[in-house]
């Protein structure tokens, strides 16, 4: 088989049964792999109304056909399940080296079912798999767990695991692999914890083959040349990492400040920028498997109370602890991010939840006694302290561990949660980037920036510049971006490649790898199919048009300054157009014709 390995592992944690099964090649051709095929398998087997943290929920780790090859940045795997933070389909992908190693070990993916009685981990070694006790690892951090598992299995094994946050059911716990890489959003780590599954360890010596080696290599070389020549993927990201966006978004007046209350300009943005990070704390750049970009940051705070070493922060994590909390101390921002990686929780949701608590506190809705301390905007110490407390659900951290929506709702002020479908929106103020507003509202996993990335045309001007302040053409651009992103995620490559690569380059890598003669349009159609399938899941789970919305602040409170001064998100006009372009009914449900056109059954 080419691209795909052709085999899946099914692991029943309740009774310990492990069996091998063939990959359904028909479905693989229709949904590619990773996010798309994972969702298809999940929907075949699980009721969309399932309780996310119950044994009836399943957890699928799945690679794409390009994972483990020389395709650009092809190190990714996806985790698919029903997400506890949102109740939507949950799908988060991650880079590093775990995904490729899973394929070298002989499998495209693993389906976990049920719940283990005691903590376990799965060890997959070259076509053999066994469940082993993880009692000695329960309670340990991601780094400790990874080191111990490498020691007790194989020195070059790769580990995906949860930290204490996943064990304790933090609703936005992550699954971490290679220590610092995260399947980060929507709380998939809490699902893993609810199953008593501490880790998955993989090691293999097998190969990934492609259908047309010569043509595939030509496509990869072409893609790599374009990635190198592009200013974002060839210079900006390798030099400064994703934090390069801090100053860019601030200059665009779209860096949400203090729980989005104070508009899109943070007066201390420069202090938390990628430039500052490089100058003060960068040790070196790091790349995921086969990546020619290398945006990862190894960083070290050499001394002081926030001393530590780790990776990141990424732009959105740096924003959540920085501008969103009004914090200018970059060392504190890094420290909070390190803790998130070690304990396994999503820094975007955590920082945003702390920012929400800060506003609740400043408004007098939450008091000092409950918090155990002051919590003004700008308090760097408080951000680090609450990060630690939330990771283990201690003190007020127990409430923060449920995310901003449930926190604000508990105090009768859900309007202060800057979330969509209960998941926090990251780092791009949609009042100043209108297309991002439509993206947040319609994302199938709630508030999220990587289900279309309209920032690319609206702010960075790639592949062409769109005016971020107007709504014209945003719906049609977003549809294409959403569909293409679904393709990229499902193929197993990194979304960042799309700064430099378009559909023709991506489609060529896919067809020469798997040996199916898709046209470019058919490849994009795969993305549309995936998007519609996810939408159907959410509708069956109980979501309606009313959930395709934004926090009232973005719809009613105009930006106070900057290029977008006076603007709110004009969602209604974009949403109506968007549903029409999608071929959906006015209430946002796909029509029968659309589903049959996409061969969704």
């Amino acid at each position, binding site marked *: 088989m080419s691209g795909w390995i052709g085999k899946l592992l099914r692991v029943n944690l309740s009774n310990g049964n492990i069996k091998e099964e063939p990959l359904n090649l028909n479905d693989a051709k229709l949904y590619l792999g990773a996010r798309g095929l994972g969702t298809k398998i999940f929907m075949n087997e699980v009721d969309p109304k399932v309780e996310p943290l119950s044994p009836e929920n399943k957890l699928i780790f799945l690679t794409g056909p390009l994972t483990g090859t020389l395709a650009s940045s092809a190190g990714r795997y996806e985790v698919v399940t029903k997400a506890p933070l949102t109740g939507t389909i949950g799908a988060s992908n991650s880079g590093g*080296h775990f995904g490729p190693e899973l394929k070298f070990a002989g499998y495209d993916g693993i389906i976990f079912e049920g719940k283990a009685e005691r903590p376990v981990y799965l060890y997959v070694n070259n076509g053999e798999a066994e469940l082993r006790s993880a009692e000695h690892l329960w309670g340990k951090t991601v780094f400790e767990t990874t080191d111990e598992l490498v020691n007790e299995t194989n020195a070059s094994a790769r580990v995906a695991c949860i930290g204490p946050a996943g064990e304790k059911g933090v609703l936005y716990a992550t699954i971490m692999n290679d220590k610092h890489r995260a399947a980060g959003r929507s709380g998939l780590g809490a699902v893993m914890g609810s199953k008593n599954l501490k880790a998955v360890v993989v090691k293999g010596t*097998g*190969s990934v*083959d492609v259908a047309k080696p010569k043509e595939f*290599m030509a496509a990869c070389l072409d893609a*790599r040349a374009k990635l190198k020549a592009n200013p974002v993927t060839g210079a900006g990201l390798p030099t400064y990492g994703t934090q390069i966006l801090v100053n860019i978004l601030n200059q665009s007046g779209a860096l949400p400040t203090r729980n989005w209350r104070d508009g899109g300009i943070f007066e201390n943005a420069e202090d938390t920028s990628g430039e500052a990070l490089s100058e003060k704390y960068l040790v*070196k*750049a790091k790349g995921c498997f086969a990546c020619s970009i290398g945006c990862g940051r190894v960083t070290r705070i050499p001394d002081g109370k926030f001393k530590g070493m780790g990776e990141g922060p990424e732009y959105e994590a740096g924003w959540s602890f920085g501008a969103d909390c009004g914090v200018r101390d970059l060392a504190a921002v890094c420290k909070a991010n390190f803790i998130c990686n070690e304990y396994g929780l999503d820094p975007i949701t955590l920082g945003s939840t702390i920012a929400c608590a800060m506003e609740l506190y400043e408004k007098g809705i939450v008091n000092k006694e409950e918090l155990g301390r002051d919590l003004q905007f700008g308090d760097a110490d408080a951000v680090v302290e609450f990060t630690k407390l939330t990771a283990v659900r201690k003190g007020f951290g127990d409430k923060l561990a449920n995310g901003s929506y449930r926190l604000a709702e508990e105090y009768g002020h859900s309007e202060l949660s800057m979330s969509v479908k209960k998941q926090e929106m990251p780092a791009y103020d949609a009042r100043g980037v209108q297309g991002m507003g439509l993206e947040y509202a319609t994302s199938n996993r709630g508030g999220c920036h990587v289900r279309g990335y309209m920032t690319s045309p609206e702010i960075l001007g790639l592949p062409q510049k769109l005016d971020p302040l107007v709504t014209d053409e945003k719906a049609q651009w977003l549809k294409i971006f959403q569909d293409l992103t679904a393709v990229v995620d499902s193929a197993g490559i990194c979304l960042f490649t799309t700064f430099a690569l378009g559909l023709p380059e991506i489609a060529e890598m896919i067809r020469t790898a798997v040996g199916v003669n898709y046209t470019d349009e058919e490849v994009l159609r795969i993305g549309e199919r995936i998007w519609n399938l996810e939408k159907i899941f959410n509708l069956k789970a109980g979501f309606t048009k009313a959930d395709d919305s934004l926090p009232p602040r973005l719809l009613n409170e105009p930006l106070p300054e900057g290029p977008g001064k006076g603007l709110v998100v004009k969602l209604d006009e974009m949403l109506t157009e968007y549903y029409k372009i999608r071929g959906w009914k006015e209430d946002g449900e796909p029509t029968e014709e659309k589903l049959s056109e996409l061969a969704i059954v």
Partner: protein
Amino acid sequence: MGMGKVLIVSPEKCTGCRTCEMACSFSKTNSFNPQKAAVTVFQYDEAAISVPVMCMQCEEPACMKVCTVGAIYKDENGTVLVDKKKCIGCKLCISACPFGNMSFNADEKTMVKCDLCGGSPKCAELCTSGTIQFKEATPTELNKKRLVADKFMELFQEVNK
């Protein structure tokens, strides 16, 4: 042919992406498999360094010395090569190489060793960070290559203790 050119590695630039491993295995076997690559990236998390390691094309190759059937030889450019017809797969050269730069492809029953891709090494060609370069080496660079080699010798001895 790369007369006098050598592979120069600058570990401080390496992002640890292992593109070199993929490029190598693909050019040798038409498939993607780090086990079949003649280059391996060693990653030291705590020290935050990654080092691609491949055959040093030694002046006095230990692999060549131990090869009882004379399958390992040097060509006119000083590249150390394995004659697949003569090789009997005894794997003595694997133990002999002080850097661990010899391995065995069990599927094809052949030794895996860097042959500089006949003069245009794919690892250097695809390395975007500039860590692996194939060029005419200045005395300073050659000295640096030797230092890296020494460092590795130490590391491996440490590991094998």
